[in-house]
């Protein structure tokens, strides 16, 4: 996955992304951080062609996404799993149906459909809630259902937009462990988040956006940049960021 000089100007809005370039190798686990409005969601939406950038090139698994013909879009999206910031579960379908929906759409049916759906629900720990409707379960459970739907078709690349937003730290940690586990089986991960402690705890590659520009790319970063963390550690040695801090490294 590669972005080259990508910029995005929303229809009537400000410049959401400006000359963003980076590369993610297969199997990597990458956090995308930045203040609200810095362009994280916009960047993820460019990757699954929900949005077309106004400039630059985007490569996913050898396909250039921006110039992709409309007919090619479904096959691009089948390679991706996406956890949307607003879940996008269908309110009139059970969690099971919501998850199996992603398989129906790509022509899976019968026993494999049931098996894989149950597997995915079980993996995110909401199998007991399978027959419930989204409004009958908690926000965290909805979020996990959204995650189950994103992984059920075994995507090569998982895009997650705030997968731990609105969750308590413990549940967040659980989701993050799940994401790491999924990553271990080879799925490339790009996770947009505000969750500072979690980013610090996991200690993986961090991309930081600021006002639509990529301002940091650290191989094993924390939520704050290395310099700030050093400053913090000097001030309060006990509460410093966790994880080894290395210098920034171009993608």
């Amino acid at each position, binding site marked *: 996955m590669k972005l080259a000089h990508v910029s995005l100007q929303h229809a009537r809005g400000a410049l959401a992304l400006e000359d963003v370039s980076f590369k993610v190798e297969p199997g990597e686990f990458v956090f995308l951080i930045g203040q609200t409005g810095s362009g994280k969601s916009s960047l993820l939406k460019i990757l699954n062609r929900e949005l077309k950038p106004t400039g630059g090139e985007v490569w996913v698994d050898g396909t250039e996404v921006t110039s992709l013909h409309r007919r090619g879009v479904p096959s691009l999206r089948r390679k991706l799993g996406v956890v949307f910031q607003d879940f*996008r579960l269908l309110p009139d379908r059970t969690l099971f149906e919501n998850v199996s*929906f*992603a398989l129906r759409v*790509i022509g899976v049916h019968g026993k494999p459909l049931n098996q894989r759906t149950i597997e995915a629900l079980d993996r995110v720990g909401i199998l007991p809630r399978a027959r419930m409707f989204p409004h009958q379960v908690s926000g965290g459970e909805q979020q996990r259902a959204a995650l189950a739907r994103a992984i059920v078709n075994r995507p090569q690349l998982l895009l997650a937009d705030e997968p731990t937003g609105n969750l308590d730290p413990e549940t967040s940690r659980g989701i993050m462990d799940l994401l790491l586990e999924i990553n271990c089986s080879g799925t490339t991960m790009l996770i947009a988040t505000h969750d500072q402690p979690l980013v610090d705890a996991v200690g993986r590659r961090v991309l930081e956006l600021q006002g639509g520009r990529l301002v940091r790319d650290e191989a094993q970063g924390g939520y704050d940049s290395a310099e700030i963390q050093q400053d913090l550690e000097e001030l309060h040695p006990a509460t410093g960021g966790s994880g080894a801090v290395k210098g920034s490294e171009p993608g």
Partner: protein
Amino acid sequence: MIFTFMFLLREAWLNGFRQRLMILACVTTTAVALTTLGGFALLAWHVHLIADALPRRIEVHIFVRPTVPRTRVNELMAALQRSQGVSRVRLVPREIAWQEFKKSWPGPDVLDGLNDNPLPDKIEVVTTSPDRTLTLAREVRAWPESESVRDGAQVLQRLLAVAGFIRAGGLIAAVLLALGAAWMVGNAIRLTLHARRRDIRVMQLVGATNAFIRLPFIIEGTTAGTIGGVLAGALLAAGLTHLSNTLLPEIPLVSELQLAIDPTLVGGSLAIAGAVLGLTGSIVSVRRYLTLD
């Protein structure tokens, strides 16, 4: 493939159920439109049948006064045969006409009082040209032996005018109604699309192809149209059977004809027409209102 199709059928059913009032409106409109269309088509067809039984354009039918003896009739026929511009002369004897008439009369009881044959002898003359038909008709009308004369040109012209009117009026009405029905279906599909836009968006985002997303809506529209067509067919067949048993035998000319209705044919063609309307309406709507990407 089959499983996917079953899933899409179920999706179509769910869509339809959620929008059942709209679908009902679709079915009703289609039914009304197709009943009108079918009604006009059958009317035109029967006018055509009636026209068939009337003297042709180049025929003159002479009804001879009942008092004229058969020998005189034969003399008249011989004279006609000799005159210019006449290609054939044929006699329909009153006895035979009477037998035919009695056979075609549904209730014999009405005729019981009539022992005498009230029908006249009929001479059918075929001329060589429509102009000759007119002049010949004028000539034979002057005969003291002729009671009445039907010349093909006149009767047929009037009938054809009526038929033309029915056909044109019916066609316009039917086309308008059919367009209206297709529009209704299209509109219902548009509302369904709007109601389901979130589902559609999610389907698109998890990689559904356009065909997959569109099919349930097209199935839904086509089904609604087909049901409307079947209803129209049933309505029309029932109505016509009723008419042919009650009203039609009372009307002269029409009573002589068998109503040429095959209910399954009527029902079948209207069902197909309904399916086509529904298909057209939903495809147009889906192409127009289903935003891609």
